[in-house]
């Protein structure tokens, strides 16, 4: 089977910045692939290279077997792109925007009209279809933007941080829309900074940092490898920090990390609500004054940490808990 994306040794430099550093990636069709990484990891450059908007300096990149440099036209005929902004004409209606893109995709007028109507229905925008886009909410614009990338019925949909900047409700609506597309058989490659987004949508997650792939696998595999949940305790008074740290240390899950600046103590634990109860008990036995306590999944930084030994972008984070 021809891979959907096949990158080997992919390199792109912008001035002094190495955006892609000999990146290797093979993604098969029939699934949603999420490229996960912090700002500046090279996600957008990867998507723009696949969309033939950026010309790689070195290495090889093929989309369904087509070389992005030598067969750019063939690549453009099979992809649909939705970038970080809603790239729409605000002075045209939703329907007009979709018909315009459909015609540019090579459809004749009648097919373009049919395709636009289909996409409006698919994304639940029929009622708003004949309103000017400048009257749309942010969430509606993103959905229409997604529609614009779909109207040419591409084999592969490229979504660059599709939900960045959306409110939680619009985000969930967009997720639903993406999931519905996948059910209908469109292949999707999306980038995201959010672990939960990758988790909800993707069958395969590729973690990218400093222009290279640091880990790849199914969400379950990665979580297993990245490990553990984190119990995090905030205190009101930093004088409480040592007492809290000592209490959490008694849980036997490794050394707690203390952050003076944010008055926060955290410790990685095996997943489970039981661990939160244990922590509460230890804290109350130690008579510690606690402002807030939470059990949360590892942050992206912490997942990175477990794969790379360093944090993605130099922020203060916890040390590895072996």
């Amino acid at each position, binding site marked *: 089977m021809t891979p959907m994306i096949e990158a080997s040794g992919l390199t792109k430099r912008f001035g002094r910045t190495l955006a892609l550093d000999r990146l290797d990636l093979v993604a098969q069709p029939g699934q949603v692939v999420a490229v996960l990484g912090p700002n500046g990891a090279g996600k957008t450059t990867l998507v723009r290279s696949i969309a033939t908007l950026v010309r790689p300096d070195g290495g090889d990149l093929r989309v369904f077997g087509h070389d992005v440099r030598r067969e750019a036209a063939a690549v*453009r005929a099979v992809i649909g792109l939705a970038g970080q902004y809603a790239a729409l004409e605000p002075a045209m209606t939703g329907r007009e925007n979709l018909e315009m893109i459909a015609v540019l995709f090579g459809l004749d007028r009648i097919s373009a009209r049919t395709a636009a109507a289909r996409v409006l229905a698919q994304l639940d925008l029929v009622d708003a279809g004949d309103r000017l886009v400048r009257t749309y909410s942010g969430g509606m614009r993103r959905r229409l933007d997604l529609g614009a990338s779909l109207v040419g019925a591409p084999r592969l949909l490229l979504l660059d941080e599709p939900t960045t900047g959306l409110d939680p409700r619009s985000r969930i609506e967009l997720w639903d829309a993406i999931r519905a597309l996948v059910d209908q058989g469109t292949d999707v490659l999306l980038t995201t900074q959010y672990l939960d987004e990758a988790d909800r949508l993707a069958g395969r997650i590729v973690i990218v940092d400093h222009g290279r792939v640091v880990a790849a696998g199914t969400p379950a595999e990665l979580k297993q490898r990245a490990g553990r949940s984190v119990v995090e305790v905030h205190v009101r008074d930093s004088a409480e920090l040592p007492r809290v740290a000592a209490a959490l240390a008694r849980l036997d899950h490794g050394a707690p990390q203390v952050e003076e600046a944010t008055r926060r103590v955290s410790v990685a634990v095996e997943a489970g609500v039981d661990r939160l109860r244990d922590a509460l008990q230890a804290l109350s036995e130690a008579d510690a004054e606690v402002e807030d306590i939470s059990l949360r999944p590892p942050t992206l930084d912490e997942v990175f940490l477990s794969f790379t030994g360093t944090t993605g972008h130099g922020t203060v984070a916890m040390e590895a808990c072996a």
Partner: protein
Amino acid sequence: MSSATMRASTLVIARRSMVRFFRTPQLVVLGTVQGAIFLLVYRYVFGGAIDAGGIPYVDFLVPGFIATMVLFVGVGVAAGVAEDMREGFVDRLRSLPIPRSAVLSGRALADVAQLVWGLGVTTALGFVVGFRFHGSAGAALAAFALCVAYGVAFEWMFVALGTLASNAQAAQGIGFLVFPLTFVSSAYVPVDSMPGWLQAFANHQPITVMVDAVRSLALGPQAGPLLAHDSGYYVARALLWTAGIIVVFAPLAVARFRRG
């Protein structure tokens, strides 16, 4: 790619710009009103105090006003290009299976159409405030065509500048480039009324050359007291500048659009 695709995609992209223009009242009304106010201010407020070298000031002013209009319209072009780049619209078009040059040709077609519209409106306004052609009908048409040619040349300059600006506001800053070029020229006042050091600049910059050509065509024999040479001389110089601007900026604009 077939030429039909090139033509079809150019038209679709141009249509979008036209729809945007006519459905954005700020662009249509504000642009027109602003131009009209400037024209009225020159004609009726400053005009009385300006000695136009022996001809009515309105006849002196209107050809210069129309010729320099292409620059003020161009600032909007640069802002539009910067916005399309920033908002991802250009990326979307470039990711589609169309010839990449259609992105530029579509934009240029619509911009020039809007310029012709603006030139027509401004010329009509000129007539309302008392301007009259004094040359032949053919010369009047040639003057109009010359203004369109300037517009095409500056289109490339402003597209190139628009791709270099990081956002629409920065592109608006290009207005600061337009002001010295238009004001320190023969467009609104005779150059010999300026101090010597300013005359040196005014006499040798392209806008003066272009304005003189339009004025020479529009005024015909009446331009005698102002312009030492015949129209052919001024038009040839203006066309040279027009070609020069295209040769410098068109490849730059195309390269900036192709880059990746």
